[in-house]
C-alpha cells in the first residue's frame, strides 16, 4: 500500500469524533433515573454498550447460534468464523504479532489468574518474589498472594507517593534477581494514575524479568500497542471497553505462552485424549477449555469495530478535556479533596467530602440521576494508604460531556445542602 493509499483508506475509516452523535449510538444514555436524565459516570465499573454491540449479540442468537470449532454444519462454521473473526480484530487492535497470542478469557481477573496459575506455578518458587505496586486492584493482588502462599514465594509492593504515583526509585530498588514477575496496572481504577509502564517494562527487562500489565483500566482510555510497550502479558476486560460482560483477553508473548502449562482441562484445549495421555492443543486453544463465551467474543469484536471508526487520539483528547474540566470544577468545591493527583491521569476523579461519607454522596447523587461509584473500589490497600475508608469516584467514557460534569457538580452541591456543610 502506498502512503497515499494508506491515508485515503484511513480517511475512509475514520469518522470525525462528535460526542452528540456518539451519545445517540448508546441507547441507555437517553434513560431517565428517578425522573431525571441519566448522567452515567461509573464507567470504570462498566461502560455502556453501543447499538452495534447489542445488535451483534442479538444477531448471534437469532441467526448464528451454534457451538464453535466442532460441527461441520453451516451454523457451526458461521459461528466459528464470527468467533475467530473477533480474535483477528483484537489482534490488530492491540497490535499483537500473531493471533496465537490472543487468549480468550472471562475478563482481566481471569487473565491474571491464568498467568499466576500457569506461568506462576511453573516459574515462581520458594524464595522468589512477585513485585506489584501499592495501587493495584484486588484482582492484581490476590492471585499473586494465593500463588505466594502456595509456593512460599514473597509478594513485594512498590510504594506510591501522596499524589498517587509509583515511586520509581523504589521500583528500581525492589527489582532483584529474586523477582520472577512484575505485575502492574496500566491505569489505577481508584486514582486514575497512568503508570509509566513502558519505562517500567524496560527496567524489568534489563534484568530479564517478565512484566504483566493489568490493562482493565488502561485499554478503555488509551490506544494499546503491545509490541511497542514490549509487555509480556496484557490483561483486558471487554465490558470496560463497550463490549459484553464475562469476556476478556489475555495477550501473551508466544514464546512465553508456548512454555506455559495449560490453565484448565477440558474440551477444545486438547488435540487427543486417551486415559493414558492427553496431548494439548496449539495456541491459543491450549488455554481455552470448554465451550467459550461465543457471544462475548462476537460482541467485543463489534465493540472494537465501533472504536475503529474513530481516531484514538480524538477519543483520548476528548476524555482529557473532560478530566481537566471535572478536576477544575470539582476541586473548586469547598471541603472537597481529590484523591489521586498524578501528573498523568486517565478519566477518573476520586474524591472525599469533609464530614460526608461517600456512601451518602452516592445516594444523593443517584436521586439526581447521577451514577457514580462509592466504596473502596476493590483497592483496599489504596484506601489504607490515604487513611480513608472509601471514596466517591466519577469516571468518564467517550460519550460523557461537560453537561454530565455540571450535573455531578450540582449533585455535590445538593449533598452539601442536605448535610448542611
Amino acid at each position, binding site marked *: 500500500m502506498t502512503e497515499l493509499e494508506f491515508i485515503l483508506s484511513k480517511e475512509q475509516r475514520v469518522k470525525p469524533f462528535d460526542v452528540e452523535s456518539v451519545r445517540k449510538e448508546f441507547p441507555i444514555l437517553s434513560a431517565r433515573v428517578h425522573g431525571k436524565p441519566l448522567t452515567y459516570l461509573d464507567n470504570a465499573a462498566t461502560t455502556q454498550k453501543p447499538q452495534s454491540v447489542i445488535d451483534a449479540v442479538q444477531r448471534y442468537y437469532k441467526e448464528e447460534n451454534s457451538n464453535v470449532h466442532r460441527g461441520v454444519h453451516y451454523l457451526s462454521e458461521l459461528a466459528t468464523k464470527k468467533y475467530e473473526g473477533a480474535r483477528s480484530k483484537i489482534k490488530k487492535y492491540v497490535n499483537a504479532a500473531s493471533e496465537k497470542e490472543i487468549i480468550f478469557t472471562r475478563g482481566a481477573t481471569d487473565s491474571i489468574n491464568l498467568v499466576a496459575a500457569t506461568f506462576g506455578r511453573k516459574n515462581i518458587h520458594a524464595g522468589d518474589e512477585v513485585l506489584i505496586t501499592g495501587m493495584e486492584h484486588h484482582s492484581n493482588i490476590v492471585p499473586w498472594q494465593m500463588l505466594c502462599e502456595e509456593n512460599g514465594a514473597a509478594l513485594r509492593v512498590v510504594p506510591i507517593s501522596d499524589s498517587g504515583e509509583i515511586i520509581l526509585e523504589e521500583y528500581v530498588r525492589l527489582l532483584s534477581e529474586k523477582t520472577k514477575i512484575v505485575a502492574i496496572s496500566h491505569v489505577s481504577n481508584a486514582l486514575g494514575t497512568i503508570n509509566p509502564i513502558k519505562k517500567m517494562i524496560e527496567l524489568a527487562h534489563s534484568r530479564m524479568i517478565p512484566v504483566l500489565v493489568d490493562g482493565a483500566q488502561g485499554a478503555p482510555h488509551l490506544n494499546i500497542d503491545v509490541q511497542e510497550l514490549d509487555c509480556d502479558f496484557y490483561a483486558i476486560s471487554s465490558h470496560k471497553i463497550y463490549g459484553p460482560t464475562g469476556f476478556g483477553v489475555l495477550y501473551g508473548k508466544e514464546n512465553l505462552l508456548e512454555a506455559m502449562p495449560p490453565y484448565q482441562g477440558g474440551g477444545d484445549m486438547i488435540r487427543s485424549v486417551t486415559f493414558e495421555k492427553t496431548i494439548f492443543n496449539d495456541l491459543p486453544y491450549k488455554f481455552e477449555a470448554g465451550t467459550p463465551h461465543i457471544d462475548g467474543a462476537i460482541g467485543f469484536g463489534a465493540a472494537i469495530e465501533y472504536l475503529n471508526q474513530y481516531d484514538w487520539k480524538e477519543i483520548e483528547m476528548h476524555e482529557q478535556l473532560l478530566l481537566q474540566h471535572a478536576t477544575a470544577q470539582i476541586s473548586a468545591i469547598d471541603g472537597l479533596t481529590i484523591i489521586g493527583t498524578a501528573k498523568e491521569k486517565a478519566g477518573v476523579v476520586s474524591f472525599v467530602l469533609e464530614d460526608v461519607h461517600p*456512601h451518602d454522596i452516592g*445516594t444523593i447523587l443517584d436521586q439526581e440521576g447521577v451514577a457514580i461509584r*462509592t466504596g473502596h473500589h476493590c483497592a483496599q490497600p489504596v484506601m489504607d494508604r490515604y487513611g480513608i475508608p*472509601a471514596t466517591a469516584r466519577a469516571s468518564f467514557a467517550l460519550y460523557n460531556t461537560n453537561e454530565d460534569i455540571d450535573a455531578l457538580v450540582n449533585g455535590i452541591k445538593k449533598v452539601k445542602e442536605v*448535610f448542611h456543610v
Partner: protein
Amino acid sequence: MSELQSLYQEIILDHNKKPRNFKVMEFPDAKVEGYNPLCGDRYTIYVKMNGNVIDEITFQGSGCAISKASASVMSTMLKGKTREEAEAWFEKFHQLVRGELKIEDHLEEFGKLAAFGGVSEFPARVKCAILPWHTMKNAIEQKKEIVSTE
C-alpha cells in the same frame, strides 16, 4: 417531603454529626465488631449488663450517616432495656426499615427511631441501618464473631 428529605431527616443528620455514647468502654461485658466490607462501615459496640438489663451501651467506629445515626439512636434507647426488650426492638426496627409497617401508625411507640422509616425507600441502604442492630444483638448474646449485613 421528598424521598431524600425522608432519608436524611434532621434527627439522623444530628446524630451523625454529634453521635451519642460515641466512646470506647473501659470494661465491657461484651465488645463486638460489625463490618460491611462493601461500603467499609465499621463499628464496635460495647455493652455492660446488669443481670438481664443493658446497663450501658456505647460504640466507636466510622461509616455513613445512616449507619452512624442508627448506632447512636439505638444506644440512647436501649439503655435500661432487658435482653428480651432489646431483641423485640431489633425485630421492630427491621420491620420499619424494610417497609413492613406503616410508621404513621406507630409514631409514638417508635419515637426517634421513626426517623429511619425513610430508609425503606432506599433498599441499598437498609444494610447500613441494620448493621449496628445486628452487632448489638450479637453483643447481648455474647457472640464474638464479626457481624456483616452485606
